[in-house]
């Protein structure tokens, strides 16, 4: 039996001025309660907390810029942003998939416990800070472009991938919210290695893995992070993630594998073991 996917469109700017986020989120929750499984939000302009705490497996498609804390605490939604997302995307995400056809700034996936985050463009500071994994829950963050300082800080599990791709010329019509079809696969370019990551990469990492597509200078590594050999096994782990990214953003898979990845891992799971002393004095 096939049930028709129930779609609903919500205009986030009904009267010429962006709707208050409380009102928008109320409408979203009501639509979900009413059984809609595919919500389309039009004219979104920075409204916060979209999808907060929702555990129904719904799809929320956002046209415009999502506000901060998109998908915070959620467990199983699919959010697709045709635009950018402010900071704290996927804060404490538990499951589901968050997709951004644009940039998303600081502290993406903070403390994420599961789920996947795919961002086409660039990130700011502290991407994937303190992500963790438990049993079969392994959060994944993929950035198409570049990230800044402290990526993967205190990381305890999961995976962060930074691809160093420039979509600048690949998007023809910039007036329109970006969708897959708007991306010209032949015009996606590589960004030079020096710009892909910044300093203090994985400072204090004690679990999980970070893959950077390109070389990472030693001085960019944070405390207790080391570069490790990128093996065939890593390639196999990465392959499905890369395929999903390429499918979402219309990038040829071959292009991705043309450059070598750098793998970053923790020195140990207890890097700061010697910092403190417990002897009674």
């Amino acid at each position, binding site marked *: 039996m096939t049930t028709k996917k129930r779609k609903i469109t919500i205009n986030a700017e009904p009267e010429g001025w962006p709707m208050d986020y409380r009102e928008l989120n109320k409408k979203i929750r009501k639509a979900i309660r009413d059984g809609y499984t595919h919500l389309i939000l039009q004219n979104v302009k920075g409204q916060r907390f979209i999808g907060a705490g929702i555990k129904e497996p719904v799809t929320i498609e956002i046209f*415009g*810029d999502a506000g901060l804390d998109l998908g915070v605490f959620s467990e199983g939604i699919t959010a697709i942003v045709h635009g*950018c997302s402010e900071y704290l995307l996927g804060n404490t995400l538990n499951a589901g998939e968050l997709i951004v056809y644009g940039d998303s*700034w600081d502290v993406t996936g903070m403390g994420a416990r599961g789920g996947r985050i795919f961002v086409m463009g660039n990130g700011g500071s502290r991407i994937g800070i303190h992500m963790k994994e438990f049993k079969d829950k392994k959060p994944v963050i993929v950035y198409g472009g570049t990230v800044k300082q402290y990526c993967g800080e205190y990381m305890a599990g999961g995976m962060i991938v930074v691809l160093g791709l420039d979509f600048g010329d690949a998007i023809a019509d910039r*007036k329109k919210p970006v969708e897959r079809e708007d991306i010209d696969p032949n015009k996606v370019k590589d960004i030079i290695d020096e710009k892909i990551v910044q300093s203090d990469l994985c400072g204090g990492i004690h679990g999980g893995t970070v893959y950077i597509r390109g070389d990472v200078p030693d001085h960019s590594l944070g405390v207790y992070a080391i570069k490790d050999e990128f093996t065939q096994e890593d390639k196999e782990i990465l392959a499905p993630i890369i395929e999903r990214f390429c499918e979402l953003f219309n990038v040829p898979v071959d292009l991705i594998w043309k450059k070598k990845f750098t793998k970053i891992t923790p020195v140990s799971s207890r890097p700061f073991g010697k910092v403190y002393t417990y002897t009674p004095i």
Partner: protein
Amino acid sequence: MIKTNSFTTPPINPNHDACGIAALLNLDGKKVSGVKIKNMIALMKERENGLGGGFAAYGLFPKHKEQYCIQTILDDFEAKELVEEFLKDYTDILEEEKVIVRKDVIKEYPMTWRFFVDVTCKGDPDDIIKDIMMHINTSIRGAFCISGGKNMAVFKGCGWAADIAEFYQLDKIKAYMWSAHSRFPTNTPGWWGGAHPFSVLGHAVVHNGEITSYGTNAEYLKELGYECKLLTDTEVLAYIFDFLTRKSNYPPKIVHQIACMVLSPPYWKDIDRMPPKLKKWATAIRITHRKAMANGPFAIVITTDFPKPTMIGHSDRKKLRPLIAAVSEDESTFYLSSELSSIHLVDQTPNFWQPDPGKPVIASIGEPIIKGTKEPLEGLPIKIK
């Protein structure tokens, strides 16, 4: 005017937190009304709590562009007379006017009055105006000078930022450079002087953050002849910037770069990796002005007319407050904002970027924008004697 308490006297214990900041600069020098900036700041209503908003605007008084515009808020006429008498001792008042406001927006408000003055007493006119501002703000009862630069003014008060814009009728005012601030303090209402932008001479600072180095900075400023008495940590940023630009004699072309490097110097580990000349410069700058470093989380927009109209977006080295920069597609307008959506609200197709932590974005009319993606002095022809 209904007056229940003073607008111009600081309450004893202000204590504030996160704020919204937005700014725009017309790179062609064309003047635009305050509608755009109002909308930008109004969109970020979540970042304020209705206890403070303000705007700085440049290019307002072509007729009086050589005079200092002493813009004051006053509790009563008596205060106005005190200010006027005080000003007459040091300046010629060429013209004065009451700033027309909308009476139906805000319930309680002070009178806003501006004086266009020429300095008549001996000394550096800028220093004298700076001292005049400090004196009014600390010593004249019932009066507060909210700006004192040339061809610019600050409009601020207690209320939601959008209401403050309506109150001062910014839609009827045109300026080539605007900055805006919406405030989230937890202090007692009624303190109009404490709203932002914080301005001294032609500089205006809007600030989201907290300066944990305040004590050290204030001590340093005391050495340099600035007394910090206005109970806002933004004050130290404005004075540090004033000292480093106007009083330092650093070459005009790089003075903003140096000032920003002082506020958020590169880490030593990055200085160690610099090419030799840059390393010496960075070391000299950092250790000479070590107590002017601004520590703690901040994102700021500094607008200034010194040495020429310039807008600077800057952040702390650890990037603990948001800041997004953008340029319109036709490269006519430069934007800064806490949130990207507020830029998108007024411009659909800007080219935007996030500046690197602790690296300034500097835009001025007729100059290429310094984008804040490298050390501000990197690549410049510098040498050591």
